[in-house]
């Protein structure tokens, strides 16, 4: 296992380098730049040149990349140029990731709270009313975009029922955990619902698959309690593909947070990306995308390790061969 993890970590290095080059090129090849945003309608050519020089934007692209990558290797993602000039990008990310990760975690909890019981119920009562109902709800859940659900929640609870907490806004946990959770609730529901539908459908089909296996029939024939079989054999084995979906969800949740944070006025990474793009804050955009790539690579690794824990038959590399 240790060798496997080491191999995976080494493999992550070229992935990261490739990702960083792509990120850098995509951002810098887009037309426009931060200096134009900074100056607005006041576009004195001398000032434009001066600012470009100050920001190092007059250097050849490869030099700019090497400069940025060299600092990134030391944990320095640069300085924000238009969002909060002078602020280290790592500091901005630290402030914002707290909000986004809390939102993602709560969304995940809500999604699993909905998905696991309904997925299991649906599979155990295949083609009965509970199953049809669950599948219908899941279909709706998958089909409704999170921004639409978010707007509807705001409209009904915030605008029609006049609940101030329902119109969004963020309260840091240190200023009141209860208020923090209340404000997080609707964004988490908006973000987590569609995801719960995906997990529920996956769990249902995975359980049905497992339930048709010989060993389940054998356990039944041997008179082992059904509840015990479901818990120990069916659900546990059915969770393996679900774990993959959960792992992949990190990307979904981070992507979904862009819209959700904007609608619910939450100062997270999602809104930072939007502002960064509109203001052409290269270091901030590069820092965020790079951090998301790192998170994705890390999560994939964790998912692979979890596989072997959930299903001991799965072994990797030298051990497995």
């Amino acid at each position, binding site marked *: 296992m240790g060798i496997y993890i080491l191999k995976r970590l080494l493999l992550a290095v070229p992935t990261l380098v490739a990702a960083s080059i792509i990120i850098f090129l995509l951002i810098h090849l*887009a*037309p*426009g*730049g*931060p*200096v*134009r*945003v*900074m*100056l*607005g*309608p*006041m*576009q*004195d*050519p001398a000032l*434009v040149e001066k*600012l470009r020089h*100050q920001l190092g934007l007059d250097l050849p692209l490869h030099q700019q990349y090497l400069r940025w990558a060299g600092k990134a290797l030391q944990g320095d993602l640069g300085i924000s*140029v*238009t*969002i*909060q*000039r*002078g*602020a280290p990008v790592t500091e*901005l990310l630290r*402030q914002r990731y707290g909000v986004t990760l809390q939102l993602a975690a709560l969304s995940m909890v*809500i999604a699993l*709270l*909905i998905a696991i*019981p309904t997925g*299991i*119920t649906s599979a*155990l009562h295949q083609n009965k009313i509970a199953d049809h109902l669950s599948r219908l709800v899941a279909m709706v859940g998958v089909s409704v975009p999170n921004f639409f659900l978010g*707007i509807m929640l*705001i409209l009904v*609870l*915030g*605008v029609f029922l*006049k*609940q*101030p*907490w*329902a*119109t*969004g*806004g963020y309260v840091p946990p240190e200023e009141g955990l209860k208020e923090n959770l*209340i404000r997080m*609730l609707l964004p988490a529901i908006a973000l987590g619902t569609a995801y719960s539908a995906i997990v529920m459908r996956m769990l249902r089909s995975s359980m049905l698959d497992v339930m048709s296996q010989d060993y389940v029939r054998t356990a039944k024939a041997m008179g082992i309690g059904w*509840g015990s079989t*479901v818990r120990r054999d069916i659900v546990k084995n059915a969770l393996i593909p679900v774990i993959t979906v959960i792992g992949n969800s990190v990307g979904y949740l981070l992507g979904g947070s862009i819209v959700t944070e*904007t*609608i619910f006025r939450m*100062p997270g990474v999602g*809104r930072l990306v*939007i*502002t960064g793009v*509109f*203001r052409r804050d290269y270091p901030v955009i590069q820092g965020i995308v790079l951090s998301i790539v790192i998170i994705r690579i890390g999560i994939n690794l964790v998912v692979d390790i979890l596989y072997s824990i959930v299903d001991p038959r799965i072994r990797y590399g030298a051990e497995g061969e």
Partner: protein
Amino acid sequence: MRNKLFAAVALVSMLALVLSACAQPTPEVVEKEVTKVVEATKIVEKEVEVEVEKEVVVTATPAPTPKELRVGISTEPWDLDPAIRTDTGSGYIIKNVYDPLIELDQSNQPTCEFALCTDWELKDEARTIIVYLREGVTFHDGSDFTAHDVKYSIEWQLDEENEAPNKELLGPIDSVEVVDDYTLQVNFSDPYTGVLQEWTRVLDGVVPEGAHGERSEEKGVAGFAGTDLSRNPVGTGPFKFVEWVSGSHITLEPNNDYWAEGVPAPGIDRVVFEIIEDPAAMQAALIGGSIHIVDKVPFRDFATVSQMPGIETARIPGIQTQLIYINLGAPPFGISEDQVGNEAEIARAKNLRKFLFHAIDREEIADELFYGMASNQYGPWYADSEWTSPDLKEMTLHDSELAQEYLEAAGPEYADGFDFRMMCTNAQWFCDVSTIIQEQLRPYGVNVEVIPIDKSAFFDTMYETFDWDTGMEDWGLSNFLAISWLYSGYYRNNHNHNHWHHDAPDLPDHYHPTVPGHAEFVEMYDQAVIEPDEQTRKEMVYEMQELVTEDVIQIDMMFLDNLHAWSDSVEGFGDGLNSQGNINLKYVTAFSD
């Protein structure tokens, strides 16, 4: 059974979460607080330290929740140093943290109400201004406000090294003299008739002497290098700066030592300016009650918001001009480098510009996109202003027959139409305006390619290339002198939006002289700006307006109205609104959340 139980528990948990969120906040619990007190007792013979535990029972009354006035602003401020700021978002904060030297009243006239002046005198045909200052005013850092602070605020901007972006508005200053602690005299090298109006903008925040510090990269927020005040403003205004959480909010607290009686309004414990980029989220927050004031209301929502109970609205003629930039440095609307001096090409370009001017139906744009909440422009200035040329006011704007005549006059190859591009920034309504124009020009056989483009790319293309034809944008006029806008929009030779250049030493290599008229315009402006006689100056302004309109240097289309909305729990707020669209909390008389 177990599964059913699990599902039921999950469902109940979810419902409980939702219901707990909907519930009214629970009152504070009365607590018993045990305080440990350490007493030192001295005995003459031997010093003994005795630790006595006393149980002090504090019956805590519920701590009152701070009354927070929440203001939704659609754009994050860039820099809170009034000498540096150039953006609207910063203006919202500056208006409440600082006091201006001279203020603009609701009809945009200079006044000393809510300003640091008590009176002024203009002498020697506006070559000298004496400003009398308010006594008993203190800055948020505790220092007293005197004429030395105003002198510093002016001189810091005048210093070339500080690169203050609005220093030109200070005028041709020769010297700044402190007559006494509360009297300041400023002498100009030429008559500066616009001093009062221009100073309302350039001195909209007086700062304590020495407060800017030195400008540096590290202190800045965006764009220009920053100062000590960029993120820690210190003024004399009714609210003190507390914190700025980038991307989230800016918090202010009341300045209880403020000089004006009843300001800030009682009942406000804290003001939070929350940054909300999404207009729908902003309106929902206002209606839902989590925001009390919004900086703007979308045109399409104004009628609906106006009918909401508990919400007050106001519609005020605004200062945001919608305009079409025209590339005068390349065909079809301008001339290329090899066409300089070619009369036929110059005439062709002018006829096509005049075609565009008269073919656009502004009324249709105003009705379709702005629900009629806009005012047409007849030239570069406000149509109802006495500073707008009377001849221009008589002009017919939309005239399809006239447009067709100009199209034909441009030459046979244009008579049946031609193609051109219109860039529009892909935010707000600019591309919608472009699309309507595209439809309006189709009957003439003219095909407009609408190019949605990011704002930074828009400016990049416009200033650095000749590879564009027209551009749809807007510009906020933050001052109230017709001559100032003529300067901002048309005067500069080396970075004119329309590539309107004349041959001169300051013209960079990558530009070339374009359609004629610029040198003449610059000469007229230089004379007008120092003309002491108001009537003569007005006539010179008319002449310049007529020149740029007749030659269609750019198309100034319309001013949009400012649409405001606020909760009726914020009393008096509406009295402070004017065309600048400020959020002026000095006018709030009471707040009850």
